Structure formats: structure tokens, C-alpha cells
């Protein structure tokens, strides 16, 4: 079968630096071809070349076996090739229908033909088995539904090739399953799908073929059925990855953080928990179960009622600076919007949280430069040059910079929200090791994570949240997927009575209508 889209000997340079070296790749109708690799391996560049956002420095892009040179992504779209970006290209204040038809509105005379557009939107969404009202605003619908709208938009442009950049990075397990079913359906209809993800289990489940990129070179291409997840990971990283998670510690002794009856209006109801010295405490639960909001309430980023004590002393509510001074910091899950100033230099980002440590009346820029040198070494931040902007770092290196920034405040208690979101497996390992080292050094760490293996592999103790409440706690040997899922679904501990209302059938909707 002729590949619908192929690359032949494609090299791409940015200035003197080549990020792709003579890559061959092909995508056939009716197949899901997974493209995997570490951050910075060249996946994005490759996808952008195929979707017409970039042109190759050498080599050719071929559509239906014939060389094609896209002037821009519109030209690629005209050839039926559509890329769905990780950050959606949707206008939040507009409706679903308006987004699907943005730029190619149907008209009746000089006026918009809303009825026809709504009907067509409905039809497209139905094809995806997504019964969404086209009149709802994008801002009001859930993230997975936005994903569906993006796909519907692509289908509406009669896409034959869908290039999906980490479509499941922000989805829960349940939402991911829904998406995978839809992808399966599209494949059956003959759409060619290029799929990237850091979740190898998912790749194994959905892909027909897998191509692995490392440092801009294709190192492996094989049918997915012939590869194990470990083989994929090793091909990506180029080394053995047997010990992804470091050995656990003894757990904590005395209580350093005690939260009692904390309520964050609209998100969290009456939450109490403690954190011990030298402990890694996991927080599990569905997306939307209130984990992030609870921690934001604890450090004072959200209004809350209740009591927070650090080493027995009450913490002033609603004051992030006071929390930092008491040794408590929160590292956000949203590094691009809440964590880093993408347009600013590395040094400015690094010292922002602990700026007072670098300044008397004025800022000591020499000390800042030294701190940056130290952080680059300690956290293995791979920056092309020291003066570059934080936004130009790869995702994994941004996360390391964010970690370095947080640690510069010399906290005793660190709350890390989704420490490895959108990060490759090699960097994940580094971050896990780092978290464990912190605990071993007598600091205390709370890790919020939606990735079950991460919580299980990392935490000494796991608190599970469900619908804005703390559903229960699992310790030591009992930490396992089954125990956590039961609590996260509101079923109560194994063998016990339900702890709260049962939400098994609509867990995925919790994000849209957070309780209480």
C-alpha cells in the first residue's frame, strides 16, 4: 500500500544545530503509527515538518508517493493533513460549532448559516461518539471534550492524516480510554494516525507500528506487537532502565505538617492529613477530585478555612510568602502558565521565588549567576546557552528549572503537583531520584500524581481523594493499584463499607462538576 504521508532522508537544522538527521518515516492509511522518544529527541520538529509548519532542510516529504513541498500548514491541511497540538488551538469564548467552522464558515448569502453548521457539527461529533451540544462554549466543556472538538474540526476539514501530539497528556485514565476507542474507530475508517505519547502502555495498546527517535535519529521501527514497553523505553533512552523508582525510605518520624478540617469553597470539604519528616506522601485521585485545590489552599494560593500547622505552629492563611518563610512551598502542575516566566531568562526564573536571598537593597546578580551555574549542574538542566529564555527549554528541562527554583527557597516541606507531566522517561527517573534524595535528607515531600505507577513506586504512604474529600489512606505494603482505585472511586477500603457516594459510572465527569 502506498503510504499516504512519508518522509525520506529528512534533515532539519536550526542555525548550525541539526535536530533531525536523515529520517525516513511512513504512515499508511488505516494505521496508528506511534512516534516516541525523549523530550528533545526531535518528535515535535518531525511532526511540524509533516504538518507543514516547518520545511525540511534536506530530504523530501511525500504525499501519496509524490514529493510535496508545503508552503505552510494550510497547504498541508488542503492535502488532508491536520496536526492536533498539545495546547489546543481553540477559541475558548466561542462555541463548539464556531470553533469547528472557524475560518471556513458556511454562509447563506451574506449571513452565517448557523443551522447547517450546527447540524454538521453534531454529525461530526456523533461520528466520534461524543454527544456534545455544538452551542456550548469551549470554556465550559471538559478537556477531553475539547480534544474531541479538535478532532471533529480536523475531520470537518476532511483530514486523511491526523497528527496527534501527546493527546492524552492531560487526560485521566478513563478519558484516555474513551479517546483510544475513538482513535480505533478513525483507524477503521481508513484515517492514518501519527500518535505521540510518553505513556508506553497506551502506545502498546493502540499502535500498529512504533518508531523511536533518539537525538534526532530513527533508532527503531517495529510492529508494536513485537515490542515490550521496556524495549521501547530502552530504545528511547539508550540505556537500561530497570530501576525507574529509587528504593523507598523508612517513612517518617515526627509530624512536620498537620492540616485539619481544611475547606476550599467549591473544591475541597473538610480535609485533614499529616506529613512526617523524611516522608514521601502521595496524593492520588481522579483529576478534579480536589488534590491541586487542597494543596493550593494549604499554601495560601486559594482562600480556605481550617487549620494548617508547621512544626506545631499555626500558619497564616492566604499568604504564600508566609508559607515559604515557614519552609513550605508548592510546585505547580502548570509550569507554562503558573510556574515559569517563559519570556524571561533562566536566572530571573530561578531566583524569583527566593529573590530576597539574593538581595539586600539591590539584587546581587553575581550570586544569581553562581546560583544558575549550580542549578544547571545539580539538576542537569540542558540549556543551549545560559542567557536563553525559559520558554525555549524543552519540557523536561523546564521542569528541572522549576524544581531548582523551588529548591532555592530551601524548603523543608515541598508539595510537587504532577512532577513528571509531559516528561520523558529518562528525566522522570532523575526527578524520582531527586525526590527520594530530598526525603532521605530529612525534608518532607508531598507528590500529587495522576499516574498510578508513579504514586505506587514513589510514595511511602498514599492519601486518596475523591470528590473533594479525603477518601482514605494506604500505607506501606498495602499501596497498590486496586486499593487506590477503590478509594478514588468512592468504594471505601477493600472489604469495608462505601466511604461516600458511589461515582463509579461517572468518574470521568468529575472534572466538569466538581463536588461538593
Amino acid at each position, binding site marked *: 500500500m502506498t503510504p499516504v504521508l512519508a518522509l525520506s532522508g529528512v534533515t532539519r537544522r536550526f542555525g548550525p544545530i541539526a535536530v533531525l538527521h536523515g529520517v525516513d518515516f511512513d504512515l499508511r492509511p488505516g494505521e496508528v503509527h506511534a512516534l516516541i522518544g525523549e523530550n528533545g529527541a526531535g518528535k515535535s520538529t518531525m511532526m511540524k515538518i509533516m504538518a507543514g509548519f516547518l520545511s525540511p532542510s534536506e530530504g523530501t516529504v511525500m504525499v501519496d508517493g509524490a514529493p510535496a513541498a508545503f508552503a505552510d500548514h494550510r497547504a498541508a491541511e488542503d492535502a488532508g493533513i491536520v496536526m492536533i497540538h498539545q495546547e489546543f488551538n481553540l477559541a475558548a469564548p466561542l462555541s463548539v460549532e464556531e470553533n469547528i467552522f472557524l475560518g471556513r464558515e458556511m454562509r447563506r448569502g451574506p449571513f452565517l448559516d448557523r443551522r447547517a453548521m450546527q447540524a454538521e457539527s453534531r454529525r461530526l461529533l456523533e461520528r466520534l461518539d461524543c454527544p456534545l451540544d455544538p452551542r456550548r462554549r469551549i470554556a465550559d466543556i471538559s478537556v477531553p471534550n475539547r480534544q474531541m472538538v479538535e478532532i471533529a474540526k480536523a475531520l470537518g476539514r476532511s483530514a486523511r492524516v491526523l497528527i496527534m501530539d501527546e493527546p492524552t497528556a492531560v487526560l485521566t485514565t478513563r478519558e484516555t480510554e474513551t479517546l483510544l476507542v475513538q482513535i480505533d474507530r478513525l483507524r477503521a475508517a481508513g484515517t492514518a494516525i501519527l500518535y505521540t505519547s510518553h505513556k508506553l502502555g497506551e502506545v502498546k495498546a493502540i499502535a500498529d507500528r512504533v518508531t523511536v527517535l533518539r537525538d534526532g535519529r530513527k533508532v527503531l521501527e517495529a510492529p508494536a506487537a513485537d515490542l515490550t514497553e521496556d524495549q521501547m523505553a530502552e530504545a528511547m533512552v539508550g540505556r537500561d532502565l530497570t530501576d525507574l523508582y529509587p528504593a523507598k525510605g523508612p517513612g517518617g518520624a515526627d509530624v512536620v505538617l498537620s492540616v485539619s478540617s481544611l475547606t476550599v469553597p467549591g473544591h475541597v470539604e473538610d480535609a485533614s492529613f499529616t506529613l512526617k519528616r523524611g516522608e514521601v506522601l502521595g496524593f492520588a485521585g481522579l483529576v478534579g477530585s480536589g488534590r491541586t485545590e487542597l494543596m493550593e489552599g494549604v499554601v495560601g494560593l486559594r482562600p480556605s478555612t481550617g487549620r494548617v500547622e508547621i512544626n506545631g505552629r499555626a500558619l497564616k492563611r492566604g499568604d504564600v510568602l508566609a508559607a515559604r518563610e515557614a519552609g513550605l512551598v508548592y510546585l505547580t502542575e502548570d509550569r507554562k502558565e503558573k*510556574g515559569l516566566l517563559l519570556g524571561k531568562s533562566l536566572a530571573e526564573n530561578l531566583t524569583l521565588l527566593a529573590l530576597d536571598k539574593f538581595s539586600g537593597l539591590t539584587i546581587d546578580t553575581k550570586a544569581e549567576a553562581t546560583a544558575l551555574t549550580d542549578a544547571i549542574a545539580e539538576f542537569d538542566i540542558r540549556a543551549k546557552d545560559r*542567557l536563553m529564555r525559559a520558554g525555549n527549554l524543552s519540557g523536561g528541562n523546564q521542569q528541572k528549572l522549576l524544581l531548582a527554583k523551588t529548591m532555592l527557597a530551601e524548603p523543608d516541606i515541598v508539595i510537587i503537583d504532577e512532577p513528571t507531566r509531559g516528561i520523558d522517561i529518562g528525566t522522570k527517573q532523575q526527578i524520582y531520584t531527586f525526590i527520594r534524595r530530598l526525603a532521605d535528607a530529612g525534608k518532607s515531600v508531598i507528590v500529587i500524581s495522576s499516574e498510578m505507577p508513579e504514586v505506587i513506586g514513589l510514595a511511602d504512604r498514599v492519601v486518596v481523594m475523591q470528590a473533594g474529600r479525603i477518601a482514605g489512606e494506604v500505607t506501606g505494603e498495602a499501596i497498590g493499584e486496586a486499593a487506590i482505585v477503590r478509594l478514588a472511586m468512592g468504594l471505601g477500603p477493600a472489604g469495608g463499607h462505601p466511604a461516600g457516594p458511589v461515582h463509579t459510572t461517572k468518574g470521568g465527569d468529575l472534572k466538569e462538576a466538581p463536588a461538593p
Partner: protein
Amino acid sequence: MNDTASSGRTFRLDLHVLGPLLALIALVLIGASINDNFLSAGNITNVLARSAFIGIIAVGMTFVITAGGIDLSVGSMAAFVAGVVILTMNALIPALGVSWLTIVAGMLTAIAAGLLAGLLNGVLIAKVGIEAFIVTLGTMGIYRSLVTWLADGGTLSLDYALRTLYRPVYYGGIWGVAWPIIVFALVAVIGEIVMRRTPFGRHCAALGANEQVARYSAVKVDRTRILTYVLLGFLVGIAVIMYVPRLGSASASTGVLWELEAIAAVIIGGTVLKGGFGRVWGTVVGVLILSLIDNILNLASMVSPYLNGAIQGVIVILAVVLQREKKAAD
């Protein structure tokens, strides 16, 4: 901040940094070639002293804009504060006499009134959460109307004897440098240091670049934002202290369009209008460019001085186009 880093765009970036300076040098050369008097001490003093009011205000405006705000009220605020100062000093003459004591009391009034007015803007914007544009559009109207009302539609004049005593604050100086120039220079130098080298300056830029990130980085977001407006109000007070002895009066037409000139100077100087990056020295260059254009048109006979505004407008638009080119180059 200084992104002279990656290869290939060094030239363009240097142009971006040096652009305003080159424009200023070009203007000086043009001025010098057109009129022999241009470089005379008298003319230079005149240009600089008259730039001082807008300049002092524009330094404050740089902080407000860098932090992602805007203040349209400063022109009206200056007029209102000047009115209040004149009324206060006139009222104090019976008690304190025509003395420096009265003048100092007037100066303190100017600063207090400026601080309060800035605080009002800042609190409405940061705490009540109204758009800066709307708040300061409102207070702009309020202060303008109040000064007109205070002057009953006419002019508020400082007592003649007191004015004579006060005059040297504008017309005098030390070592041949006029006071307004000295104050402007001091404000500019301190402003540059505060912007570049203090946590407050860094926080302003962080706030303008991304308020969420600033909040998550334990920056006191509201307090920093309010402080930018209070600082601007304070500098309006300082500008009024220098302005009142110049004419000894305030009326409905005092300070008209100062806010726009100050904003224009900030933008010409390379500060980003939507915030996140600011430089005070650039603003100073911007102020000088604007007043030199005015001065050159007055000295030369080729182009009517009435076209001053048009040329300034072209310069502002050009400055923004250059900023955008820098963005496109990234």
C-alpha cells in the same frame, strides 16, 4: 532580558536596544546643523527643564506599564495636585507668612496628594479588580473636573510674593544646572537602579509578564501593583513641586495630554506596552526625543511647529513597529 544570545539576530537586537539612542543622536545632529543656538547652554537648559515634568512622571509610568498596567490620569492628577498645592499655600500665608515654611508645607501637600491619588488608583485596580484603563479613565475625568471646579472655570494663582520666593525652585540651580534637571536626573538614575537591580523592579516585570507565575512565586502581587501606582503618584507630586514655581498657577488646561506624552515616551524607550519588560533609561531617551522634536521644529523654519504632534505620532508608531520586528525575529 538582554537576549543578545543566540546567533543570527545580534544585529537586529542591538538595533532594538540602540534604536532610541541612535534616534536621539540623529536629532541632536539635525538640531545642531539647523540652528547654531541649538547647542547653546540656554537652549539645552530650556529643553531639559521643560522635559523634567513629563520625564519625572514617565519614569513612574515605566513601572506601571512594566507591571502590566496603565495610568491615564496623571495629567489631570498633576493639574489637581497643583491646584490643591496652590490653595493650601495661599491659605497658609496668614499663619506661616510668606516663608519657606509655607513652601515646604506646600511641597509636602503635593507629595501627600500624589501618594493618595496613586493609592486610590492602585487600590481600585488591584483590590477592587477593575481594569486599569477604566479606573484611570475615570479618575482622569474626576481630577480634571475637580481642578476646574476649584478654579471655578478660571485659573488658580499662587500669592505673588510667595511665587517670587518659590521661583528659584524652577529657575534656579547649582553649578549652572537648573533644579528641575537635577531632580529629573536623580529620579531617572534611582528609577533605573530600582528597575534593574531591586526585587521591586524584578517583581514588576514578573507581574507584567505573567501575574499567575508571580503569585505562585510568592510575590505579593496586589501590593506590588498598588506600589507602582503609588510610586507614580509620588512622582506626579514631585513633578508638581517643580511645576508650580514655573507659572505659579493651575487651571483646567494644566497638564493636558501629559499622560499620553508620558506613555509615548515609555513606549519609544522600548518598554513593552503590555508589560513584562521595562527600562527606565529608555524612557528618559524617549522623553528627550519628544522634547527635541518640539524644540527643533520651533528653531527651524522649514516645518511648521504645528506639525509637532504629527511627527511625535509617527515616532511612537515606528517605535512599536520596531518592537514587533524584534518579536518576529525570535
